[in-house]
């Protein structure tokens, strides 16, 4: 466990010493701001119009805004995840520091876990940044915070699962750009492979729809905690980390 912490600390430092983390956080802040502002202004306009017509606006505004806002965040994962994970192993392979890690008395699993947790931590920082927008709603109203917590739990699980996939892809190459592009591609496919389910309902379509990360997000975004979906994401995390471990082992046989 001590070694996991050691690797985690090293990775966190390298995120925050280089401009990577700051640029990501800045981009995140900007995009989350826009994502938040658009539904906010839209609903405000509806509400004002409804008031002018003398009607009562029928929607719980803060909750509706949060739902729309958080529902858009998975889109940003598509480019955030590759940027966070692409350097994890590719960089170590390029500079040769992987040799230091693999010849030190530390298990591969500890290296992988430390790196993945660091990536997940940075992703959590981004989610926390998005929560600043939501916090404003609490200043002006009293929305129910429990479904929001479930929303965020969903986002965290989905992010962590995709980060595990990205960590795996980063072990496959020395080139960060290739790792990043590969991760982007994998994330995108996992997002959209559920679409076939909309046109087709044979077994393959159902399997693909089940594999898609977006179909499992729906329950979380509704604010309901469905153990089936949580297990799906946890499985995806395990699969990603397991593949990473196999790939790291095969590095030795191939290199």
């Amino acid at each position: 466990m001590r070694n996991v912490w050691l690797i985690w600390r090293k990775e966190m430092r390298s995120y925050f010493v280089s401009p990577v983390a700051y640029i990501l956080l800045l981009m995140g802040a900007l995009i989350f701001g826009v994502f938040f502002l658009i539904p906010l202004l839209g609903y405000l306009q509806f509400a004002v119009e409804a008031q002018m017509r003398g009607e009562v606006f029928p929607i719980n505004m803060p909750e509706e805004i949060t739902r729309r806002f958080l529902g858009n965040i998975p889109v940003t994962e598509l480019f955030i995840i590759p940027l966070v994970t692409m350097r994890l192993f590719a960089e170590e392979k390029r500079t040769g520091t992987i040799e230091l890690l693999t010849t030190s008395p530390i298990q591969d699993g500890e290296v992988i876990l430390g790196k993945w947790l660091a990536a997940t931590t940075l992703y959590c920082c981004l989610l926390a940044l998005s929560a600043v927008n939501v916090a404003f709603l609490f200043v002006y109203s009293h929305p129910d915070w429990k479904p929001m917590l479930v929303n965020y739990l969903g986002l965290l699980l989905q992010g962590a699962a995709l980060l595990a996939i990205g960590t795996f892809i980063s072990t496959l190459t020395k080139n960060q750009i290739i790792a990043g592009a590969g991760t982007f591609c994998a994330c995108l496919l996992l997002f959209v492979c559920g679409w076939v389910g909309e046109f087709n309902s044979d077994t393959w379509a159902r399997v693909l729809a089940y594999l898609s990360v977006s179909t499992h997000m729906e329950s979380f975004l509704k604010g309901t905690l469905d153990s089936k979906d949580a297990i799906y994401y946890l499985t995806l995390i395990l699969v990603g980390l397991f593949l990473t471990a196999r790939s790291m082992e095969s590095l030795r046989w191939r290199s």
Partner: protein
Amino acid sequence: MITVKELTKRYARNTAVDHISFEIQKGQIVGFLGPNGAGKTTTMRMLTCFLPPTAGTATVAGFDVLEEPMEVKKRIGYLPETPPLYPEMMTGEYLSFVGSLKGLRGAELKQRIDYVSERCAIADVRNKQLGKLSKGYRQRVGLAQAIIHNPEVLILDEPTAGLDPKQINETRDLIKSLAGDHTIILSTHILPEVEQICQQVIIISKGKLVATDTVDNLQNRSRGAESIFVEVAGRNGALDTTLVQARIGKVSGVTRIVLKEKQPAHSTFEVETQKDHFVRGDLARAIVEAGWDLNEMRSAAVSLEEIFLQLTRTQEAAPKEEAVVTGAGK
């Protein structure tokens, strides 16, 4: 300390290391010598548990690299060809990271960082980013990270490659000073380096072991025996080289004759002679009396370099020949 038996590493298309066996005693500095691509790095990587061997075994400090890699890793300090530095880290922070990786903590870690910083003369760059250090400093930081946990075995892959002459000397002195406490294997293709710092040499070429011997023995061999180049020409434009070899072989003190270059009218031979035998007069007389012309005679001092080239060349010419040389070759 290190025992290697029939160690082999095969890749899809080629065999990088082919049935190598050797043994290294505690506290020795061993030079691992060979041309580029001979399999030095691969062998070292197998010893450090970075690569698993295809066949054969290697034990370090009594632990098998395949069966108990963790125990081996604890006892090994390894400096790869390019020092494994994280460019964004400070020197001190890097040493602390590596030290913790190797299992040091608290006061002991601090004390070891101070010790290696002083030993490797990097104390003045402790608060500098590794990415901004010069090549010489990087190499020394690399060496510092290898010895931070006071390992029993040090494995250094070309520790002086890419340094300027002054830095090379400093690095060699540093390695020499580490000798007593650690068993050191260092790979190189620079011969004087081996002569300067190593007690034993292991020469490999194309993945095969060519020779293991002590440096003293190899040097004795090069100093003791004199080697002479002789160019002999036939009077009538033709020369029977076997006849010349037979005639020279009869001169007392000559141990070996090698035909170096054959041309229709004249040929060059390399004549190896016994220690303290001055055969030049007899040699010249023998040639002239046999009716040949002596075009040239000069001494060809056998350096370690020469031995090395000979050994690696015969390897290429006759790969199946058993070419392991041991003892003082007198």
